[in-house]
């Protein structure tokens, strides 16, 4: 048995004929021109009046209004241009720009944030802050969380000098030199091991 694969009954559209079982499209009729016409099915909206007033959770939904009423529900309204209300609307919209951090009396702030130094640090390399004004130091995990890597992103300049400095710093604090990887293309330096505290303290001391 041959039926059309396309469900849309477009006039002038040459259908692709494929083989299907007879139960695939039960309501079919062959027209004189060889095209298959489908009977128009009567569509009825399901009556979802499952709402019970005694159960406080199953409340009345907006679909609970009768169909005739639903069309005229939003015809009657008043427009208001209240400044206080519009201010509330604007406070909900997503931030267009990330604001500059306010000036604090002393640093570090209660949450431990320190701004970058106002003068450029005298180093061969540079590390910029993230868009939220934080240090770009991240923890990566490998082997299902068994191995940890410390990643420093947004590095620029001589990354090998940075890597040497970091190795010396970790050696000073921990007494052991970590394995390192320098990714010059992406501007990343990776250290094997979780040294978030040590690395961020080092970067802050340098003034990044």
């Amino acid at each position, binding site marked *: 048995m041959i039926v059309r694969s396309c469900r849309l009954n477009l006039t002038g559209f040459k259908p692709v004929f494929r083989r299907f079982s007879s139960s695939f499209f039960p309501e079919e009729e062959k027209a004189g021109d060889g095209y298959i016409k489908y009977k128009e099915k009567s569509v009825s909206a399901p009556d979802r009046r499952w709402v019970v007033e005694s159960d406080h959770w199953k409340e009345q939904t907006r679909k609970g209004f009768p169909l005739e009423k639903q069309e005229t529900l939003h015809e009657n309204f008043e427009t208001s241009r209240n400044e206080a209300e519009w201010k509330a609307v604007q406070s909900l919209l997503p931030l267009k720009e990330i604001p500059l951090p306010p000036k604090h009396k002393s640093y570090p702030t209660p*949450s431990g944030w320190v701004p970058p130094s106002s003068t450029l640090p005298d180093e061969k390399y540079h590390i910029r802050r993230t868009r939220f004004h934080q240090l770009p130091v991240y923890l990566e995990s490998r082997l299902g969380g068994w191995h940890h890597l410390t990643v420093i992103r947004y590095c620029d300049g001589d990354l090998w000098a940075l890597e040497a400095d970091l190795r010396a710093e970790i050696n000073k604090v921990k007494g052991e030199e970590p394995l390192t990887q320098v990714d010059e293309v992406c501007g990343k330096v990776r250290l094997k091991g979780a040294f978030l505290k040590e690395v961020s303290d080092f970067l802050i001391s340098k003034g990044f």
Partner: protein
Amino acid sequence: MGQKGQKQRGSLPYIGHEGGQTPFHIVIPKEPYYQGYHARKQYPPFSLLQLQRMIDLGLLNPDEPIDLSALLRVQTFQFKPRHNHYGLHLIDEGIDIFEAQVNLEIQWASEPVIAAIERLGGTITTRFYDMECLNYIVSPKENFLKGKPIPRCKLPSNDVVKYYTSAENRGYLADPEKIAEERSKLAQKYGYELPDLKKDPKKDMLLKRKDPRQIFFHLQPGWVVNLHDKCILKPTDEDLLKYYRS
């Protein structure tokens, strides 16, 4: 396979058969860790340290009430209602460094966290939002542009009714007098002096609360926000007003 044996004829007993003794997978009772997992409410963690950092960086204004939409507006963390995220769980990380006086509305909070906020003269309420409202809160701009009216918040579902009606958890459906009692009890338990809210210059802001049916401050359910013409359309149909009434 060998020759002339059980293995060749395929008549071995089934794997796990213990020679007639009840097998261990039947003896040991089931532990259904993941029963109903798809329907469980998830509350992703949000720490006091994160909150303090957001205030330090000027991303949040502590002089105004902080609710879910104020936190999500900054977009510093992911929140997905489609993963059954019913709100944020305020955890105690950074409890020692927290210094801000805030009026906070959160979905889940533990006792020490509540104490940490109230010790500094702040207030905290736990608040339930249903899925329709959460989807609206996550992307208000898109929903305004679609012309969707602000939904009416449903009451909490049966499994969390107890949490949101108890004064210990500072539930939004709890009796305010009982909450005042619990505030002083908690101060005695943790040994701090409870600052007097009535004498606070920020008193009005700290005692600002939403209606249980309301999801945004100053905006009522049923209103349609027109961002293009910068106006708000308020329904006047009596049936609709009756439906949106709290």
